[in-house]
């Protein structure tokens, strides 16, 4: 393996780790905002929000379980 390849692999790990470290405070705010938004639509039982970094990109996944969809206020 060349020095360039070693540098490249190390950098990829370091940059991904830096991205993961960055949003710890933001995640709490994001979670609360998403919860508030989804409460308008669902009677939420459980919600989990996961932020990960894959190939240098943030991936946000939200899993929600709800007993029913809120339909009041929706004009048909």
């Amino acid at each position, binding site marked *: 393996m060349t020095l360039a390849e070693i540098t*490249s692999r*190390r950098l990829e790990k370091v940059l991904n780790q830096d991205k993961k470290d960055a949003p710890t405070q933001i995640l709490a705010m994001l979670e609360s905002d998403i919860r508030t938004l989804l409460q308008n639509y669902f009677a939420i039982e459980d919600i989990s929000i996961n932020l990960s970094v894959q190939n240098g990109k943030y991936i946000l996944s939200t899993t929600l379980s709800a007993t029913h969809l809120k339909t009041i206020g929706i004009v048909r």
Partner: protein
Amino acid sequence: MARKIVITSGKGGVGKTTVTANLGTKLANLGFRVLLVDTDIGLNNLDVVMGVENKVMFDILDIINGKCRAKQALVQDCHHPSLFILPAPNSDSDSLITAGNLLETLSTLEHFFDYILLDCPAGLDNGFHRAVYCANEAIVVVTPHISSIRDAGKVVARLANYPLSSVKLVVNRVRGDMLMTGDSIAVERIIDLLGTNILGVVPDDDAISALSAIGAIPSGTTSSRAFAILAENLHTGTKKIFDCTYRYRGIAGTIRRNLKRRI
């Protein structure tokens, strides 16, 4: 109205001031009216790199304190009549100059220029904010070294907080010989890792450090050609990339490469 571009990096010593000075000179060569602003308060060097330190009468702080008008503080470059430098105070007066103060100062000057290049201090604190706040575009200078690329990643993330219309990379100090031997990370890989567009590359050139000591901008050198391409890319939107490896190809190139090899 001027395009206001901040030249930043996160890591110190990677070539922000060098890029500001040389890019500014090349833009002036193209006939544009260019203002170079030293926002590295207390650690100012742009005046020295441009060779005008003896012509400095006033600085940014004097404008803010009302000791002079903004135009009076500008220093004209010795070789290019359309190139001006706005010096930073030499003393540690960082806390006396807010981002708002600087923006106000530049707003009185921006009508007279096509380009305003802001030489940003290293780091991500006050000085960074002050410079980026006044800009509408950013150039992130990075060298092909692991610590510089890592810091550039943090800078690119931080710049996302500002309403900038463009953020582009300049990869400085590229060693063509090391690229050929696989000892240096490729420019394309740096772009890929940082997920940012590139403005151009500048080769590592002894002429830059040698000639900066006598306050001259290197002309007719390899890096001078690279800076000319950078200026063209910036103004016209072309995406030309200077080939840093051309000197190291063929028989003569192999000899050059072996002579330069240090590891």
